[in-house]
């Protein structure tokens, strides 16, 4: 059932030797070598793997990325522009000091991974590749191990207080053939709070791993905007470990993008923790294919924790949506409240949706449930709006936004939520008919 580590991988990776790993200090060299070892044991993903049956891994593991032309935004302001934030800019995976703000802030320690990795001792040692390695059981995630071994840069953030200005990572994409591998490590200390924003196409092919460790009573909020550049491909992993009474909330908006797979692996290890993951994906396969995959694994290993998975997909012109979600409730995780929702709205006959909402429950005093639906726009609702004089395209847009509302509601900050809604509106306006 679960993909256990096999001694002989079906698809062995090209040999990663010590001299191909990015040069680092002692701790990072060890972490990279361990990750390379994990990858060698598990092998690269193939279509025969249970968790890759609906998404082709081929273009994510090829030697060279498929070229992707940089997107011309024209006069369009990038998302999150109106928000006061600490900006950190990577261009095709390379840190851009001139475009970035000074790496500091009250209650914040920010460093580049490249700098932290160069040192012989660093606090990130206890997290880098550590949460990723924990997240490899019971389901292997070889591309995350690859990232830990090969990541060239990223940010390392320690949050010690209530940080009011969000930290914003902006990924610019300029080079048509760039292949970026970034890895971030975030530690939210006891009672501290951070909001992390991410946006931009990043590269022709982008591999991103974020490891987040939230201490007792800490809060981590994450809002990510992907896509816009249609040709780019992305594989992202979020590994989070949550202590008692901590809060983790992550929302991802994806508008277009040939291939996106977002994996999120959450562990609730302290009592009364809260973990929410949400996503709104809109895809139009008219010009090129659109394939969007959300793969989520939430483990409840403490008492009275709450988890939510809310994923919505709006698909048209052959766009494909995939949802693979799982809630695992361990025997001691009594009073768990887990809910998983995966819904797709298919705007035409060619769109398709595949879902596997799984539950694995070993505790008896829990509320765990899931709902998954797929279908076309509700003709009755459309008729209702049209009979009141609403033009058809506006009526459709209204119903699509209403469909996405549950996911957007997962964003706590109203200003950011409005910014996201405006972008979704923009997509709808561009993709009418």
């Amino acid at each position, binding site marked *: *059932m679960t993909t256990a580590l096999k001694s002989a991988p079906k698809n062995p990776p090209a040999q990663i030797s010590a001299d191909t790993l990015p040069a680092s200090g002692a701790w990072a060299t060890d972490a990279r070598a361990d990750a390379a070892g994990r990858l060698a044991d598990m092998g690269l993903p193939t279509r025969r793997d*249970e968790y890759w049956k609906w998404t082709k891994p081929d273009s994510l593991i090829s030697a060279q990325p498929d070229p992707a032309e940089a997107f011309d935004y024209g006069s369009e302001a990038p998302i999150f522009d109106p928000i006061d934030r600490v900006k950190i800019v990577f261009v095709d995976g390379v840190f851009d000091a001139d475009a970035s703000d000074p790496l500091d802030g009250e209650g914040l320690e920010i460093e580049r991974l490249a700098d932290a990795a160069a040192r012989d001792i660093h606090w990130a040692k206890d997290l880098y590749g550590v949460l990723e390695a924990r997240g490899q059981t019971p389901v292997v995630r070889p591309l995350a191990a690859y990232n830990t071994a090969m990541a060239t840069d990223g940010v390392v953030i320690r949050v010690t207080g209530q940080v009011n200005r969000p930290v914003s990572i902006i990924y610019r994409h300029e080079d048509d053939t760039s292949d970026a591998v970034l890895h971030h490590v975030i530690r939210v200390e006891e009672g501290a709070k951070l909001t992390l924003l991410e946006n931009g196409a990043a590269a022709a092919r982008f591999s991103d791993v974020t490891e987040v460790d939230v201490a007792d009573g800490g809060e981590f909020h994450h809002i990510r905007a992907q896509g816009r550049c249609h040709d780019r491909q992305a594989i992202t992993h979020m590994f989070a470990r949550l202590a008692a009474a901590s809060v983790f909330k992550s929302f991802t908006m994806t508008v277009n993008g040939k291939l996106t797979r977002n994996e999120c692996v959450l562990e609730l290890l302290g009592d009364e923790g809260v973990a929410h993951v949400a996503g709104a994906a809109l895809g139009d396969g008219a010009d090129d294919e659109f394939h969007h995959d959300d793969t989520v694994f939430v483990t409840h290993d403490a008492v009275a924790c709450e988890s939510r998975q809310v994923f919505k997909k709006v698909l048209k012109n052959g766009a494909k949506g995939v949802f693979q979600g799982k809630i695992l409730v361990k*025997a001691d995780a*009594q009073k768990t409240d887990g809910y998983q929702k995966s819904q*797709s709205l*298919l*705007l*035409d*006959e060619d*769109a*398709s*949706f*595949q*879902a*596997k*909402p*799984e*539950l*694995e*429950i*070993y*505790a*008896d*005093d*829990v*509320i*765990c*449930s*899931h*709902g*998954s*639906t*797929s*279908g*076309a726009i509700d003709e009755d609702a459309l008729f209702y709006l049209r009979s009141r004089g609403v033009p058809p395209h506006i009526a459709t847009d209204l119903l699509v936004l209403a469909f996405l509302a549950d996911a957007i509601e997962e964003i706590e900050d109203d200003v950011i939520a409005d910014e996201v809604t405006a972008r979704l509106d923009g997509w709808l306006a561009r993709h009418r008919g």
Partner: protein
Amino acid sequence: MAGMDKMNVKEGVEEETVEAVKSLAGTYKYGWETDIEMEYAPKGLNRDIVRLISEKNEEPEWMTEWRLGAFARWEKMVEPEWAMLDYPEIDFQDQYYYARPKSMEVKPKSLDEVDPKLLATYEKLGIPLKEQMILAGVEGAEDVPAEGRKVAVDAVFDSVSVGTTFQAELKKAGVIFCSISDAIRDHPELVKKYLGSVVPVSDNYYATLNSAVFSDGSFVYIPPNTRCPMELSTYFRINAENTGQFERTLIIADKGSYVSYLEGCTAPQRDTAQLHAAVVEIIVEEDAEVKYSTVQNWFPGDENGKGGIYNFVTKRADCRGDRSKVMWTQVETGSAVTWKYPSCLLRGNESQGEFYSIAITNNHQQADTGTKMVHLGRDTKSRIVSKGISAGVAQNTYRGLVSMHPKAKNSRNFTQCDSLLIGDKCGAHTVPYIEVKNNSSRVEHEATTSKVDEEQMFYCRQRGMDEEEAVALIVNGFAKDVLQALPMEFAMEAQQLVAISLEGSVG
């Protein structure tokens, strides 16, 4: 079920539910053994054994070749590991693949000639092999007016069919109901045409094994525009030790026909696990309807998990014709290990598939069961209602597939699967696969008491019920749906389950 007395049952689970599960899984009533002289094929599995089974059944050459072809494929296959089941490796060479009571060596011409020991066995199981007005001997049935209801029974004992009742009366209606070995001899044209057409020889590991070594089973043919005059039933009994039972059932419902088919099964209580790998194929032509109901009550193993039946079953219905309909109802209470996914291929336009299941696991039982609804024709409908109940240290998994193909326009699926855990040492799991490839179809998958139909809730609330009462009413209504889908004969047995409410259930 000493274990459950000490178990901490969560608040909110009704006493009645616990009692009902206890009484069901308490003592295995059918664990006795018939002392009868048996004749075995040598232990192990090879081409010679396959030939021997074919010879014993006096089969024509084409059938022998078919089996050998299956065996050759099986040898190249690997046992699947994806189910959430954990059992010691099965030594397929340490089994008997054919066991027949000595007295069956010369096939009895009528039920009067059958060994009285065998007849007594079925009598004791509550399945009298007599042509009389019967309600298949189910406990409590005497309270129900029989009103001339008849059930024809095909009784399978280890590897052979002992006899089939009411054959003459069925023949008058044009219905063929006999053992599959008789059908291979007497109706080769039908068997050749349909055998393996729904579950191909190489479908999966256990089905391929079954294709090579099946020894007997039932065959049903309902001619066009015929309503089968009585319910048909097969009762499977495993008696011999270290012997696998591999039965094959083939049901063909021709255009406009109707049949209700019941299946029951039991086995003696033993310390060693025994293998059961069956295949059921159903062909449903235009406007035909088949109801297939099972109460699976194989020996589940003792409370320490010793012994029990390993039950690997492939059941599939092919709704070939337009407006054809199939309904699977199963009450799964037995077996140490259950691996079973009764499926519907909805090929015909406007065809319908339904799956109602209650799976109860206790002690060390493990069940990985569910259904597949494959929508291929337009305007097809399917409904899945599955209730899993786990107690002791048992594991209960619902695994299902709903697939809407691009041509299955305007199709509809509704899935509801609930689980209940009694005690804190067991597990309940849900693994649904949903694949939607057109947008005019609607697929809904739900799994919680709090997500009951809002209109129904509103209706109840409006009439003054509080929320809890309303939910209880609606959910109980749902559980009864499964039970009411059972024919009278099984409903009696399943009535013990009606008390089970799904309060506190998890998806």
